[in-house]
């Protein structure tokens, strides 16, 4: 059996690599995708385009603007002098926020009255808008606090300067809270699934469509060998791809990898069982490559969205959260983020590893059973 298996594997590899384009797709594409993902996928909000509409033009108003600028989040893109400009700039998307200070701002503050800072935010991108509101709120409350402290100090006379409670935020594992470090390991998991699922399902169906399947079935090859022959090459290719894109992640994006690479490969292998199994299953229910592709996509898309890759599972409706327990990607993401950023090992990750193994074996078993049936 080993001999025949070797033959099948050789044939598969030759077929895959004969076409130079296939080589590109299989090795270059994932790296390329990784780079794009890594750079594009960031939910950090910076460089908020801002317009300043300062009718007061005083020391205090300029102090406000300076604080906004110094925060590093806001980029002043326009200085507004007329009301109509505000509407126009926001409509055309030239600015996302407008800070407006009415005449008399400084006066109010000096007189002990309230100073009002108006902020207009473009809500079409509500995520960014919420974050902008958050930033602005912090800046203004800080400013407000500082003024209060000044007034208090003046009242009490020289001596201790009153201080509030100071929150010190310390991040473990990803000190600068760079969203990239959060996403990049996830992207690795994602790409593994995208590659193996689509390729496996289409590769098997391809033989069905072209008609070479019948020919192979007439030979002494057993279904088990055929399955292994079809899935092993992609498993191997995926493992290579994992290493490649991990290298890109570590050396190009400088995402730290605290944990064990071997554990990563082990987890990947377990995860591969689920995706290859799924790919195999899809191939058994598809007659044409078109159907395989649609089915693979039909499965992939919710799997990605409901995995915790971007959208936190904890904030999904209860029912949906229960559904995610069936999603192998969910476990793989936990493992991969754990290994990369936390450096945790088996002792912490064993529940997820176990879940992957169980699901992997189950899916593979189901898929091969179905496969055998369709051949018979």
């Amino acid at each position: 059996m080993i001999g025949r298996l070797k033959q099948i594997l050789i044939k598969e590899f030759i077929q895959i690599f004969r076409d130079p384009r296939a080589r590109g797709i299989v090795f270059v594409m994932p790296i390329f995708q990784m780079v794009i993902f890594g750079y594009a996928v960031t939910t950090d909000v910076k460089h908020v385009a801002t317009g300043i509409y300062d009718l007061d033009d005083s020391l205090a108003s300029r102090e406000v603007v300076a604080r906004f600028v110094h925060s590093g989040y806001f980029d002043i893109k326009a200085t507004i002098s007329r009301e109509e400009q505000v509407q126009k700039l926001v409509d055309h998307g030239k600015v996302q926020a407008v800070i407006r200070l009415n005449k008399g701002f400084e006066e109010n503050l000096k007189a002990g009255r309230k100073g009002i800072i108006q902020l207009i935010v473009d809500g079409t991108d509500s995520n960014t808008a919420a974050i902008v509101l958050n930033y602005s709120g912090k800046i203004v409350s800080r400013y407000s606090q500082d003024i209060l402290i000044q007034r208090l100090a003046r009242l009490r006379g020289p001596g201790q300067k009153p201080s509030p409670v100071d929150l010190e935020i310390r991040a473990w594992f990803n000190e600068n809270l760079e969203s990239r470090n959060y996403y990049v390991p996830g992207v690795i998991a994602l790409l593994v699934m995208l590659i193996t699922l689509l390729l496996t399902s289409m590769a098997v169906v391809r033989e069905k469509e072209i008609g070479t399947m019948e020919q192979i079935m007439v030979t002494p090859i057993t279904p088990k060998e055929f399955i292994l022959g079809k899935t092993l090459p992609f498993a191997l290719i995926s493992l290579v791809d994992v290493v490649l894109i991990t290298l890109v992640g570590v050396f190009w994006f400088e995402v730290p990898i605290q944990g064990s690479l071997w554990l990563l490969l082990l987890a990947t292998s377990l995860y591969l069982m689920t995706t290859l199994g799924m790919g195999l299953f899809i191939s058994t229910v598809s007659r044409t490559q078109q159907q395989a592709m649609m089915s693979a996509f039909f499965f992939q898309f919710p799997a990605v969205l409901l995995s915790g890759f971007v959208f936190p599972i904890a904030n999904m409706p209860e029912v949906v959260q229960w559904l995610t327990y069936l999603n192998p990607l969910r476990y793989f993401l936990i493992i991969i983020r754990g290994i990369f950023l936390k450096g945790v090992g088996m002792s912490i990750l064993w529940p997820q590893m176990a879940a992957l193994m169980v699901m992997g074996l189950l899916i593979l078993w189901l898929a091969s059973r179905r496969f055998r049936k369709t051949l018979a």
Partner: protein
Amino acid sequence: MSPRRIGAMARKEFIHIFRDPRSLGMGIAIPMIMLLLFGYALTLDVDKVPMVIWDQSRSQASREFISHFLGSRYFSLQGYVDKYPEVEKSIDSRRALVSLVIPSDFAGRIASGRKTPVQLIVDGSDSNTATIAGGYAEVIVAAFSQDLLLQEFRRSGGVSPSNPVELRPRVWFNADLESRNYIIPGLIAVIMMVIAALLTSLTVAREWEQGTMEQLISTPVKAPELIIGKLIPYFTIGMFDVFLAVMMGEFLFQVPLRGSVALIFAQAAIFLIGTLSLGMLISIVTKNQLLASQLAMVATFLPAFLLSGFAYPIRSMPPVLQWITYLVPAKYFVILLKGIYLKGVGPRVLLVEGIFLSVFGLVMFVLANLKFKKRLI
């Protein structure tokens, strides 16, 4: 050009589609599922962040402080710890994503008006949630500090409004900041590109693989006739998907539509022609279904999802990538859709985007025609 030949191609293509009900069903189901997921299940909003607290002070003051956190919907208390290793374990095992650490001299410092540091340890591996949770915590602490200062102030005999400086925010266009209202319009663009990727990218390649293309190129049929004939059915499906999405947006999710529906459909039609032609171009050039599918993923779906501004703000991307997004047609369509839905603006404001989409459509169609050779090699 012969309308008859175009008609024959279109009719044949329709038959193919309807004889493959699964693919057709998926072509409609996938957009629906995407809409449902994005409308109901997916949100970037964060609340109920699991938290453990290490109160080293155990004083009235610290309990008062903690109550502000407990009362907030943003945090969900998982328990109290009293040792450092326990904090580690909680975060490692994901029992908690944040840990509040209150120093033992908290009460004393507060009473004497000295600076009082409180630590919030966050799990950086989930940087998104960590950032947001940190933001919430800062707000809570700022409010707490403000209260303390005011008490001090009034005790010292001063008169002051509650806050010297107040921020009055006004959110335009999406006042409730419903993330749904901004995701759904953009989603329509993504759906369009997905349909193009999945359907048209395989059609020509399939005929090459099955051998029927060899037969076709020996007939008098011309490249534009073949391409247009093949586009027609997929265009119909695409427009139907747009219709479905707009209907779902309107009636299921109640996403407010301020602008003109007709404009949406008009722009969608132009966009669709472009993306379908792109899919067809991929099919023509690769002549191989497996390669076409991979290429389609990368050339249509991924850019639409990642680089269109649909989910990830373009302004936050590195400059190189921002330049690249100018080449992503979905970006313009997303701007158009958001503009029409949320801002209610019309063609004059969105002229640039509209022109770009038209140019894109034209270029793709022309390219597909140029690349289609009625020769075997």
